[in-house]
Structures are given as structure tokens and as C-alpha cells.
């Protein structure tokens, strides 16, 4: 069964049609990359999948695990296993990272009818996941993303993903603003999550990240649609020729 099936998706933002008939099918176990120029609608697609208010679907369908995804609230989607690593993670003053992580994990467990973790269980789990991402205790005590560097914010997104163990991960330009060392840490964190049950969609502007997270399928997005799909070699072709050639092709 397809984990995610998007058909002829049209979506408006601020009264403007951004997605213009997008099709995409993702199976569990696959890693997809979506590449495309700025403004092509990549973030819009990720927000539509996560259920951001104001992103209005006007046509088409999105099915997740065989069911209509669009009728679910954002928190319901998250509990069902959808995770969006934000291109620009938000700062939440006054909410400690630890509190945030715990509230999120327990809320999802509660909704799924699973037992909540005890404090020691939770602490052990966070320490284990955070260690691999180079996130120290001090960072976890601070307010969510407040005063974090760009790289720390992105690593914090991956930590959340590792803790919540989603089925469908959407990473929106997780590589932007990272130096090569940080990029490797993040890629390693993502690779650890690759599994038969899980699908990952990596949205990126550059081929660089895909050297570290090698995708099964690469899509090219332009003007709110997938205009080409292929294997990892497509990413290299784009790197060599740029998006301009594609856009003329799509037009």
C-alpha cells in the first residue's frame, strides 16, 4: 500500500494558487528528494501535508495510509505519524525544550492510546537521542530554539523527529544554513531513521545534502508541480545544468 498518495493537488495561499496539480506517491521504506528553485512551492507542499491553517486545498486529494489526510487537524496528523522538520524552526520563549518534547511525546502517545513515559524513562530516551546529535543538557533546559544558532535549531528538529518516531518525515531545507560538519551530523541523524516502515521526503535546493542522505527517487518541482522524476542521477544532472533548463522544459 502507498503510505502517501497525492493526486492533482491544487492549493491556495493568501488567495494565490501555489500548488497547481501536484502528483506524488510515496511508499513506506522509500526516501524521496524534492528539488526545485525558490518559490516553486516546496514549503507550501510541506505545510499542506502538516495542515497549516491558511493553506487551502482547492482541488485534488491527499491520502495517507489509505485515508483522507486533509480532514485531519495538524495534531491528529502528527499523532498518526506525520512529521515536518521546519525550514525555519520557531522560537518559543518561556517553554523549556524538555517540557516541549515531553508534552509532544505524551500527547501523541495519549492520542494513540499508549502509556505515557515516566520521567526517568523519558529522560533516558532524550539523553540517548540528543547525544547522537551533539545536543547537550544545557540546550534542553533552554527555551525552545531561543538563542539557538541556525545549526542548533535544525538539530533540534531532528531530535524531535527521532523522539517522535514518525512514519512520514518531511524535511524542509534542513540543510540550509548548515556548515559541512553540522550537515553530516544532521544527515547521520536522518539516516538512522531510515527503515522499512518509514518514508522520508527530503526537500532541498542543493544536491549537497543528497550526497549524505542518498534518495531512492528524486523529483523536480517547478511552478507548483512535479515536473520530472528519476533516480539519484537526476540530482547530479540538476547540479550540472541548473534549474533553468528544466523550467523551459516544463513550460
Amino acid at each position, binding site marked *: 500500500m502507498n503510505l502517501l498518495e497525492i493526486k492533482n493537488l491544487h492549493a491556495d495561499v493568501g488567495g494565490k494558487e501555489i500548488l497547481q496539480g501536484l502528483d506524488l506517491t510515496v511508499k513506506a521504506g522509500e526516501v524521496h528528494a524534492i528539488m526545485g528553485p525558490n518559490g516553486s512551492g516546496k514549503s507550501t507542499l510541506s505545510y499542506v501535508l*502538516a*495542515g*497549516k*491553517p491558511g493553506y487551502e486545498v482547492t482541488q485534488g486529494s491527499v491520502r495517507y495510509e489509505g485515508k483522507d489526510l486533509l480532514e485531519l*487537524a*495538524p*495534531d491528529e*496528523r*502528527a*499523532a498518526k505519524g506525520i*512529521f*515536518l522538520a*521546519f525550514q525555519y*524552526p*520557531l522560537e*518559543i*520563549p*518561556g*517553554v523549556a525544550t524538555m*517540557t*516541549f518534547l515531553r*508534552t*509532544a*511525546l505524551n*500527547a*501523541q502517545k495519549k*492520542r494513540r492510546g499508549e502509556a505515557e513515559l515516566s520521567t526517568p524513562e523519558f529522560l533516558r530516551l532524550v539523553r540517548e537521542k540528543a547525544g547522537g546529535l551533539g545536543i547537550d543538557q544545557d540546550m534542553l533546559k533552554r*527555551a525552545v530554539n531561543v538563542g539557538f544558532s541556525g545549526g542548533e535549531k535544525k538539530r533540534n528538529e531532528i531530535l*524531535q523527529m527521532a523522539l*517522535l518516531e514518525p512514519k512520514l518525515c518531511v524535511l524542509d531545507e534542513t540543510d540550509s544554513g548548515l556548515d559541512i560538519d553540522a550537515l553530516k551530523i544532521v544527515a547521520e541523524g536522518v539516516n538512522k531513521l531510515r527503515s522499512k516502515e518509514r518514508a522520508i521526503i527530503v526537500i532541498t535546493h542543493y544536491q549537497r545534502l543528497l550526497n549524505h542522505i542518498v534518495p531512492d527517487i528524486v523529483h523536480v518541482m517547478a511552478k507548483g508541480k512535479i515536473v520530472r522524476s528519476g533516480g539519484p542521477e537526476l540530482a547530479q544532472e540538476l547540479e550540472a545544468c541548473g534549474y533553468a533548463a528544466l523550467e523551459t522544459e516544463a513550460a
Partner: protein
Amino acid sequence: MNAEVRPIRTAAEQALAADYQSAKKRLPGGPAFARLREQALAAFVEGGLPHRRIEEWKYTDLRTLLREAAPLADPPDKATFARAKKFDPLPGVDVRRVTLINGSFVGELSDLVQPEAGLTILPLSRALAEGHALASRIGRLLPPYYDATLALNTAFVADGIVIGLAAGSKLARPIHVRHLFTGAAAAAAYARTLVVVGEGAIATVIESFEGPDGVAYQANTTAEMQLGDKAWLEYVRVQAEGDAAIHLATVLADIGAQAKLHTCSLTVGAAVSRQSVFLRCTGAGSETRLSGATLLRRKQHADTTLYVDHMTQGCSSREMFKSALDDESRGVFQGKIVVRPGAQKTDAKMMSAALLLGDAAEADNKPELEIYADDVVCGHGATAGALDENLLFYLRARGIPRKEAEALLIRAFIGEAMEAVPHEALREALLARAADWLAAREHAA
């Protein structure tokens, strides 16, 4: 005839004046205090209840809100003691407890035994009746303008608590003055707390106010605080009155040289409430920190009005008031900072922020600076707005349901106002009360 005298107009005003005439013989105090009462009543007869054309009461029209003067509350009957005993508004805080029910001191529910060295603590009724040395300090602090609620308190107050701390002494644990209202019928209760902190003495005093829902009682309370040089007072008040109550509070303080006054108020109760705070920095180099969190729902109305008077040089004051306003509630914040000529090197900053949770909620903010000195740093800021939808989405995208996500953000917003309370258990208890409010909101459909 004096043409300036405004005739008493409302039924409530007339009833209050009449009540005083029939009650005054029963009220405690010697001739000096009786004179204070008479003066206060005369001022009330002249000034009446404030209304919206009185600048300081612009948003809280007491003449309209206080349609009827409730009869003076009866002293509490013993049957209510057992219930009151179980009642702990701030669990987990080790305190010396004082209980006032319907404005009367209740010895059975108060712990005045074995006061630590330097502590004098006794019921206000006894202090007045016996002419105790501290009684002469009651009613000494006056606001810069006529204030009806304070005048009524001075006229009617029958009891309360008097706390004196000798120079250099330190309270071993906070004193918690619990104000409870009991009874099913509307009644008026007046109480007063006097806190005199001697030179270099250190104290934490908590006052809490509670009563039954659905009873339109009127609680009028005054706290007078006199801080000697280098004294340090932490003052915390929790207003959690019943949902039909009117709560009128006046807080007055004189702050000596290099003294520290830190206050934190949590307001969750009453249909209508007002706290008027009048502070005077009388000695050089003092430090004042005022903070407050107000959490309102339905048609609740809460007004915080501050007057901070920098009378002399080198004093700092910080005010931070936060309110979260749900449904159709209304939060009022008025803050005035006065820097007198010669009060050089004053450092004053005032901040108020309102979170509008309900579509029909309203926040009124009026900060004012009145500066007559040139070498000062003063500022104020006021904000009002809804919860950040982008932050809510971020939290929800992590699986946190909307109401819970809102609760996290509201808690973070108001938590800032309670962060500065140094007593850990007390701070936790305050946050727990705020959490109760949030939980109730989360579970309301």
C-alpha cells in the same frame, strides 16, 4: 453652605453612610482611631463612589458596579471553621498561618504562638482595643488623592492582622494571611493588614482571598506596609475570590533607604476586582519590583492601578504585569510613575502585556510617566494581542492538541510575572494555581 460638597446620590452611597452610623459604636479603637474613621467617612460622604469620569477609575465605574451596599458581614460561626481548616490555597508552602473569616480574626485557625525573635503579631482588633504601639501606625499611609475604597476600609475596618518585625530580625517562614468569606448571602467584609518591617529586617508575607462562587459578597481589604531602611519585604497576594464577588484592595507602602520591596500578585477570582497600589520611595537607593499575573474568563473584570512615587534619588522600580483574558473578560492596567524634582538617578521601567484569548475580551492599558527630574532612566511599554498562530501551529505539528498548545503558551506568557518570587515552594504554588486555571480552560468545551 459649601457649594463644593457633592450630595450623596446613589442608594449604595447612602446605605454605606447609614451603615457606618449604626456600626461605629461597635468598631474597635481609641479616640485617635475613631477620629480617623470619622475623617474617612466624611471624605466618603463628600467624594462618594468613583465613576468613569474620575481618571483613576476610568475603566472601573464603581458607582455602577456597586449598585447595592451589602450589609456588614456577621462574624464567622464555628460551623464554618472545620471547612476552613481543610482549605489550603497554597499547598506545600511552610508558613505561619493567620486566618480571617468575613474580616474577623479567627484564633482557632491561626498560629500566633512562639513568634521568632523580633516578631510581633496580633489581631488588628486587639491592637486597636489595647492601644498597642503598632496601632498608632495604622492609617498613616495615604494615597496622593482621595480613594473611596480606602476611605471605606478605614471607616469600617474591625479586624485584620498587625505584623511588626524588629530591626535586624528575619522571619523564619512566610506569614500567610488567609482571607476567607463564608456564607450564602451577600455581605461586606473589611479587613486590614499592617506590616512594619524594621531596619534591615527580612520578611515574606502572603495574603490570599477566597470565598464561595455565586455569592455577591464584597471584600474590601487594605495592606499597609512600612519598610525601614535596608528592610526587605517579599509580598505576595493571591486573589481567588468567588465568581460573583467584588474585591476591592488597596496596597500602600513606604519604602525606606536601600530597602527592597518585591511584590507579586496573582488574580484569578471575583466578578469585579480592583487593586490600587500606592508606593512611595521615601529613602534613597531602594529597589521595588512589582509583578502580577491576571487570568480572567467569562465576564470577569479586574483592574490593577499603580502609583509609584519616586520621592528621592537613586531608587529603581520595575513593574511587569501580564494578563490573559478569555471570553468576554476585561483587564485594566493603569500605571503611573512619578519622579519628583530631585529624585535624580531614578531608574524606572514599567511593562504591561495582555493576551486576548476571547474574541470579546478587552484590555485597557494606561501607562503614564510624570517626570520632574532630568537625570533619570524611565520607560514603559504596553502590548496587547492574541496568541501567535504560527507558534500554535508549530506545537500542533508536534502532536499537541490546540487547547494544550494554548495552555503551554499562556503559561509561558504569564509565568514571567511569577518567576521572580524567590521562595521556591511559594513560586511553585503560584504556578500551580495558574495551572489550575489553565486546566479548567482546557477542559471547558
